[in-house]
């Protein structure tokens, strides 16, 4: 649900087969550096690049299970990432 101009929320029920579509779409967004959220009329674009903070948590309590995945970052002044040259991490020996 688009809550305000720059907020998007979507809740639904999925099964393990259908949820993959959503996870794939998000993965592709991170890969391409462009994540689009919204409706036909109103959408906003996020451009994740550079450093992201990733939080993964899992919890089980009274038969209720929750797995959360949270990615956050800070944008530059015009929606761009704060640092012009993203840090590059290469696998070293």
């Amino acid at each position, binding site marked *: 649900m688009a809550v305000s101009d720059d907020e998007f929320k*979507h809740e639904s029920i999925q*099964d393990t087969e*259908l949820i993959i*579509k*959503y996870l*794939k*779409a*998000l993965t592709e*967004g991170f890969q391409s550096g462009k994540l*689009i959220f919204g409706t036909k009329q109103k959408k906003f674009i996020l451009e994740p690049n550079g450093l992201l903070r990733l939080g993964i948590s899992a919890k089980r309590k009274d038969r209720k299970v929750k797995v959360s995945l949270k990615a956050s970052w800070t944008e530059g002044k015009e929606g761009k990432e704060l640092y012009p040259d993203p840090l590059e991490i290469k696998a070293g020996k």
Partner: protein
Amino acid sequence: MPETYTILQGEIENNLQLIILETTKQVEDTQKVLKKPDPHVIEKILARDDYIDNLKSIIERESFYSSIKKKTSKPEADTMRSLYIIGNNLERIADFAVNIVRQTEHLVSNEFLKRIKYGEAFKEILESLKLIHKAFKNRDLNLGLKICRSEISLDNYFGLNFKRIMNELKAGGEHTESLVTTLFILQYLERMGDSLLNIGEAIIFATIGERVKIKHIESLDDSMGSMDMNKFLEELKIEAFLGTKSGCKISRVQKNLKGANEQPVIFKEGKISKIKKEKENIEAWESLKAGLPPKVFSFQKNGRTASILLEFLEGPTIQNSLLDPDGCCLDESFEHLKKILTEIWTKTLSPEPVCSNFIRQLKTRVSDIYKAHPDFKLKPRQIGSLVTYSFEELIDECEALENKITVPFSVWSHGDFNLDNIIYDTHEHRMHFIDLYRSGRQDYVQDISVFLVSIFRLPIFVPKIRDRMNQFTLKFFQFGQKFSNKNGDPTFEARLALGLARSFFTSTRFEFDQKFSQTMQQRALYLLEKIASHQGRPWEDFKLVPKVLTYL
């Protein structure tokens, strides 16, 4: 004129007409007194009281003792008995009139009488009095019912004015005495309604030969139904009762309280086509399994409408057993239910193809759902490269897919197979199905899906009870699966997904708890998405995730 009426000729008929006339005068004069107290009119009322009492005694003697003196047939005896009830209740109405007049003496000022619109109540009473003779003479069930209905109107009238006066009393002031007096007057008018109900029931008794107690009046006319506040209030009362007490035990108590030889009935009226359909369906059910549907006592056409008088079946519904703190009789009733459904479905199974039509049924309800939940109007969403359906697109897509899913056979189905339409008599170990006007040859998944969602949608969140509801749901689902396997129905689960989606979504229009209604809406959307995303693959491979049926 009915044959039995001939015995009314002569003195008894004369006395019946006389007592109606005198009671009418009594009520009319009482209205006059309430408009403007006049000692002459009051005197006439008091004098007439003895005369009416006398008339009642004559009717009582003639009707009651004539059946003892000579051997009478049952219709004759029924006529006499109802005449006795009518005479008695007319005399009571006349007594209430005297009581009202006596109350006026306690009013501090006659001006006070103008504060209440008594005219409405008197109009209702006088109109009903006018119908009594004709209703009795012609054995007219509809007029009998009309008389019964005046009790509801007078109850409502009393309720509204009672609240008004109580508020004035609470506010305090100098009129306490007059306000209390007014309450008494109103209560006597309300009690006149109770007597009219007895009279109406006596007329129905004379007509059908069964002593009835009207438990429920239903209108199957769409336009009337939507405005029927009484039905709405009645349902609210039932809901409150279900939410608090053990239905299983209470219904037993109710049975004990029932009057001797009294047959509780439901009176339904509406368009001829609908009432006739219900009657035919009941007959069809009866021929399949005797005693499963309610008995039909009478069916009458009346111009463009028709009415039907049905046995009011008592006993706990499966819903009562499910919500009972100890799950009283649940296992027993479930075993019985499985047996009956297997028997009926097997007996009526026919390989002719039918359409399941779940999405078409859903479409007819969408505007009602949006009225209750405007935020359910789902627009397409974009999440990265994924674009979700709008609700309209989703149901169009699913409707096209539904038409491609083969329904291998049809069976005789209930058509509105809610939990509370199944009664289990724990004493007689008998099951009954009620509300059968939607029955017909259909996909059996229709009944299974409605039944499963009727459990889910109960707003019960007590873990112990909900666990039981979930277990019951899963057992019923397994029963459906077994039947489908045994009868070669490989697309059962795909059709069930559509039927469930329909029922989840349409059930939201009765649920105003935002969280719970959203839960049902989301399940409906999930099931529809699941169907849509399955296209291109064989429907035989479609598998339902059973968790969609359970909650918590």
